């Protein structure tokens, strides 16, 4: 009833090719953005921004990057944590080694270096596919873990291997409070999501998807696999690198190679799979699921216990959190193998018929 496109006539190809061809979608997304930028900053206390929204946004950004590679181009990668690390450490180096380096430039340069590393470690993808490629990208993970903990130059000769960044400032705007950090991350996510969405809708995105669906057929119709695969690696690592830099600069403030360990790579892969392969929206859903659910369980269980007058020990909460989280992942993958993004689109289809499904 409320979600019908009746009466919305498209008179030009441009209208038909918009990101959101349905007016309600457009309004909904604009309203959501307005809500995120204008209302959310006044809603919560610091905890929600710092512990939930900022990690959610940064991981969502990283997941968008991983989704381009894994979801759109079909190249399974377990090196995402490494590309995040490259972004974070190189942004750090740019930031402390060049006096007066603007923050955004440092973050983007971090992404730039991640691009280079991504291309280098993407080269095996020209020969190996699928799970074998996943194993090959593990090399990136181990190499970067090694490099950032062993080569003192990367950490500016810090004795402990941990690095920290000072005050964040963009053109006179000091990013101090959690709300400011949230807005800063949100701007990055919005800009990159828009760029990514447009990339995957365009010629290059079609090439990626053609490679994903069948690389031999794609080559036959004139798509260069080298170019398509390496460009997917490049774009993906750039976005992941920027996300890594944000994770270090904005979320942690001080970090060590362990922050970008193999666990991070797996986490990003899970976000993409649970959220929905080949969907920008899915990256956001997946990140929300992976970031928020454990924290929610961790706080909800004691609350639940207190309702029944039971005090649950800290260790038991932690164990239960893992068990429920694991069970939910399995349940979700059985119930909807195409991820949360698919649930979203099913919901939208149902809504079109609502309230008269027949």
């Amino acid at each position, binding site marked *: 009833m409320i979600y019908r496109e009746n009466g919305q006539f498209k008179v030009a190809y441009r209208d038909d090719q918009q990101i959101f061809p349905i007016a309600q979608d457009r309004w909904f997304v604009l309203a959501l953005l307005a809500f995120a930028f204008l209302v959310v900053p006044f809603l919560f206390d610091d905890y929600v921004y710092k512990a939930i929204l900022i990690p959610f946004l940064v991981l969502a950004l990283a997941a968008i990057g991983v989704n381009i590679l894994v979801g759109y181009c079909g190249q399974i990668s377990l090196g995402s944590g490494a590309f995040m690390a490259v972004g974070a450490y190189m942004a750090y180096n740019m930031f402390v080694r060049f006096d007066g380096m603007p923050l955004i430039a440092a973050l983007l340069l971090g992404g730039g270096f991640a691009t280079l590393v991504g291309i280098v470690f993407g080269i095996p993808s020209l020969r190996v596919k699928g799970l074998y490629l996943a194993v090959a990208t593990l090399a990136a993970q181990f190499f970067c873990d090694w490099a950032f903990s062993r080569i003192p130059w990367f950490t500016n000769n810090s004795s402990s291997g941990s690095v920290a960044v*000072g005050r964040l400032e963009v053109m006179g705007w000091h990013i101090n409070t959690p709300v400011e950090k949230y807005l800063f991350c949100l701007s990055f996510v919005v800009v990159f999501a828009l760029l990514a969405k447009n990339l995957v809708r365009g010629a290059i995105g079609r090439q990626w998807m053609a490679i994903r669906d069948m690389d031999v057929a794609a080559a036959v119709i004139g798509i260069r696999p080298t170019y398509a695969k390496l460009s997917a690696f490049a774009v993906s690592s750039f976005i992941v690198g920027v996300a890594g830099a944000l994770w270090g600069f904005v979320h942690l403030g001080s970090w060590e190679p362990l922050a970008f360990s193999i666990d991070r790579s797996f986490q990003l892969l899970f976000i993409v799979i649970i959220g929905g392969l080949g969907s920008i929206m899915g990256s956001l859903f997946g990140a929300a699921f992976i970031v928020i659910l454990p924290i929610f369980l961790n706080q909800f269980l004691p609350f639940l216990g207190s309702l029944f007058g039971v005090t649950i020990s*800290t260790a038991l909460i932690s164990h239960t959190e893992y068990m429920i989280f694991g069970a939910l992942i399995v349940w979700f993958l059985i119930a909807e193998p195409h991820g949360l993004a698919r649930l979203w689109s099913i919901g939208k289809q149902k809504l079109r018929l609502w309230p008269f499904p027949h």
Partner: protein
Amino acid sequence: MTLRKVLSVAAFTAAALTLTEAPPEALAQEKVQFFPSFTGRTGPVAPNATPFANGFWDYMKLVNERGGINGVRTLVEECETAYATDRGVECYERLKGRHGGATVIQPLSTGITFALTEKVPADKIPMITSGYGRSDSADGGIFKWNFPLIGHYWIAGDVVLRHIANLEGGWDKLKGKRIAVGFHDSPFGKELLPIVEERAKRHGFTLQLLPIPAPGVEQKAIWLQVRQQRPDYVILQTWGIMTPTAIREAIAVGYPMSKVFGTWWSGAEPDLRDIGAAAKGYNAVMMQHGSSRDSGVIKEILEKVHGKGQGTGPRAEVGDVLYMRGVVGAMLAVEGVFRAQERFGKGQPMTGEQTRWGYENLDITEARLKAIGFDGVISPVKTSCSDHMGSARARIHTWDGSRFTWSSNFINADESIITPMVRASADRYATEKKLTRRPASDCNS
């Protein structure tokens, strides 16, 4: 279908409730001093971090049994970090504002300490990192909110080397020796290295650095190097399940236990209990306290806390090394509040800013230690505006097959070497972060 709907609505409402507002505390009207406890009850450090958390909580309960901090009750809430930095940051954000605000943070993880060092100045919450965290934070001129009370890694490292030098008969006898350092491959492990490198340079012994990747359940390759190169001594800077694994591997390659020295975090009962007599002779440096089952405070905890069925963990572990560390950590936290109350009002809950002054002006004398049952457990602690550590000595204990016994007296670390290193490192930190040293006028704030 309807049931599912109801369930999902219920789940969402509950989610909204728990995430937006913390459940109101029943104790709201009572005067409380809130001490968050960052625990590692699960994960790779659980065997070691659990007794710490138990000791911490038990001492806080004991303080309440004694009548609180001049009438102000202590309140503990735990948050599980599992030794992961991102979870630690989340815990910090979660707990810092609860129950009238966190008094002091003790993260029990060097990684979390590094991350929180960037956050505590803005939130005005002091952070105690006894024996871990940033060694350079002993310099109160730069690190206003950090307190590595009773020692840090460099003190431990210096004391181990000094003890080894004593065994050999002097620093000059170390020339040409080879000392291996097995360390947790993380900031925690690496923080030890500057002092051993400095000492190696001064006294002409060679170092064999053996990074052990976390969590450290697989160390065969590392100990193969030890077997090949036969260093004269091995120093272990490990934590959690890494330590017993290292000791087992050392035994497996036939390395003599009496030549292995753990640092403060690598020499407690959970590390050795299962190995038992095979590890006889294993040493570890203790920043003052060790296992103190016959100390006054332990007797009091057994009587007033465990005796009333209020104990946090198993009674059998009360008084063990890491349990004691929790007790000492809690004691230091509470003493700072006592000190702050002397200035800002007795019987009042103190804010983080006020307790910070307390920690900066701690003066726990021998008499005070005796009064609270810590005589013989640690030595007096006196901090100042520039010295946030308070005491720089340690002693060595040795595993006799079933328990630890002291094998050295207190050894003072050489502050003429460590203080300049701390200062240089702190200055480097300040330049990187574009900070300036606190002026003398800031000292009484």
